[in-house]
């Protein structure tokens, strides 16, 4: 990754994101506003969801339409473990990662060894059945209401804020490192020409299965933290709308870049807050956004970063 910082382009974006991160960590120093801080934590959670989605779907170019499955699975596991065993979050996090990683392996094993659109279908189907099951088997899952009363992450709201932020930071940095190396290269190569990757001796099916499993595991960590921060889990943690929203954030931000979805999640969460009165049109707005982006800027808003920086730098030089 250090090598990646050699080019001035990467340095520019590293500076940009360094500054952004600094702002995130500094915000509580300047404000006590509960509402504002929760908007940020919501953004951080969606950043985890969107970047974990991207590490597989953005790089292997196989669309996962049911990413919220992992959020819900992790959420329900968290609720059970919290209620019956009272284990601390730091123990529950890896449990969720393992559960969701395992589910990712299962789905990957079923669909990623095959040629065809099976992956997309199964991600929708599994998420949908999980949603239905959560409602149906209400004795275990609390049905439509879900399970309330999950403990909080830490003693204080400020503690929660930093717990979530640190989790997001670690995941984001991990994913940057992960995708700049061989995984990013091989997944992208596989998406562009799988036969050549096979002919080079690499087991592409196993590669994809592992990458998807990691995507699930990381999302599971996010889902665990999400459940704690809401102190509640329900079928809405797994609904199709959530999966689609995450996908839209990632695509609007920029597929296959990790930083794109990071940005996309931030932008869309902020936009959502700023346009509260448009709440009932939200989904319509999001879907229109993604359609426009696909036709106008398929590489996402992150691809505007280059020309934008150049324009800014140029004007700076002249003055």
């Amino acid at each position, binding site marked *: 990754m250090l090598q990646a910082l050699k080019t001035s382009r990467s340095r520019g974006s590293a500076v940009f994101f360094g500054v952004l991160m600094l702002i995130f960590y500094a915000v509580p120093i300047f404000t006590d506003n509960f509402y504002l801080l929760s908007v940020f934590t919501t953004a951080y959670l969606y950043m985890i969801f969107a970047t974990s989605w991207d590490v597989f779907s953005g790089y292997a170019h196989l669309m996962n339409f049911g990413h919220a499955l992992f959020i819900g699975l992790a959420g329900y596991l968290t609720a059970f473990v919290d209620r019956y065993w009272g284990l601390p979050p730091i123990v529950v996090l890896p449990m969720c990662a393992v559960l969701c990683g395992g589910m990712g392996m299962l789905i990957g094993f079923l669909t990623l060894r095959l040629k065809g659109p099976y992956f997309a279908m199964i991600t929708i189907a599994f998420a949908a059945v999980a949603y239905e099951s959560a409602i149906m088997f209400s004795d275990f899952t609390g049905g439509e209401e879900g399970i309330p009363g999950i403990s909080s992450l830490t003693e204080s709201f400020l503690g929660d804020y930093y717990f979530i932020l640190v989790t997001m930071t670690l995941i984001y940095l991990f994913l940057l490192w992960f995708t700049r190396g061989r995984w990013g*290269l091989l997944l*992208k190569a596989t998406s562009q020409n799988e036969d050549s990757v*096979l*002919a*080079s*001796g*690499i087991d*592409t099916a196993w590669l994809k299965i592992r990458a998807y499993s990691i995507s699930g595991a990381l999302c599971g960590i996010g889902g665990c933290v999400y459940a704690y921060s809401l102190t509640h889990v329900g079928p809405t943690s797994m609904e199709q709308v959530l999966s689609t929203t995450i996908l839209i954030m990632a695509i609007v931000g920029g597929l296959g870049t990790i930083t794109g979805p990071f940005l996309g999640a931030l932008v869309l969460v902020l936009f959502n807050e700023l346009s509260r009165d448009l709440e009932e049109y939200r989904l319509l707005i999001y879907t229109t956004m993604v359609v426009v982006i696909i036709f106008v800027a398929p590489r996402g808003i992150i691809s505007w970063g280059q020309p934008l920086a150049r324009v800014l730098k140029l004007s700076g030089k002249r003055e």
Partner: protein
Amino acid sequence: MPKNNKYLEVDNLTKHFGGLAAVEELSFSMAKGQILGLIGPNGAGKTTVFNLVTGFLPATAGRVLWNGIDLTGKKPHQIANMGIARTFQLVKPFPDLSLFDNIRVACYGPRFTSQKLSQSATEQRIYKVAATVGLPKDLNPLASTLGHGDLRLLDIARALMVQPELLLLDEPLSGLSSIETKEIVKLISQLNRQGITLFIIEHKLKELMKVADRIVAIDFGEKLAEGTPEEVVNDPKVVEAYLGTKESYGSA
């Protein structure tokens, strides 16, 4: 121990697609260090043979033996890791990756990583292979900017990264100018001198005959002839398959 001339042995290889017999009880073999050519009219099943040998297609019946090892039923990446590399009839680059990255992909296969080279040594190896095949010095541009001839070189470069013992080339000269053709023919001889056994599908017979030690001719998935280039090219069955019946040529 396999006999000397059965380094690669295809034994009654058969492939059916539904009712269609693409390859029918095909048998031939080659010795280590040779260059074997595979010829036949369009649709004869040549690429299917390659796909069967390299595991990209499962065989309906028959076997492929290499160094005594049964390749039948193995997966493509497993076969590549044994030391058998291939290129494809239609070039298969990674268009949105740089030339450097295109070749670098092959460095992550177990066969390469087992050498435990450092990152800089790997980089050097990539540049060396690129130079060997004749790619331009600058490996930064994306593969999508390359012309057809250079894309063929790129495929070969990637195949060479796994340090193959056996290299299968599917129509390496197709779509090339006469200069590019000469360069690749030279490259093929060079690789062979370095110890690589080659199995080549090619339509440009004149060039193929310059390098091939032996040739197998097939049509409709069946073997027509096998032998030295002169023998095969003059075999009446082969002539008939390519050019039509003997009558239409008026020769006995």
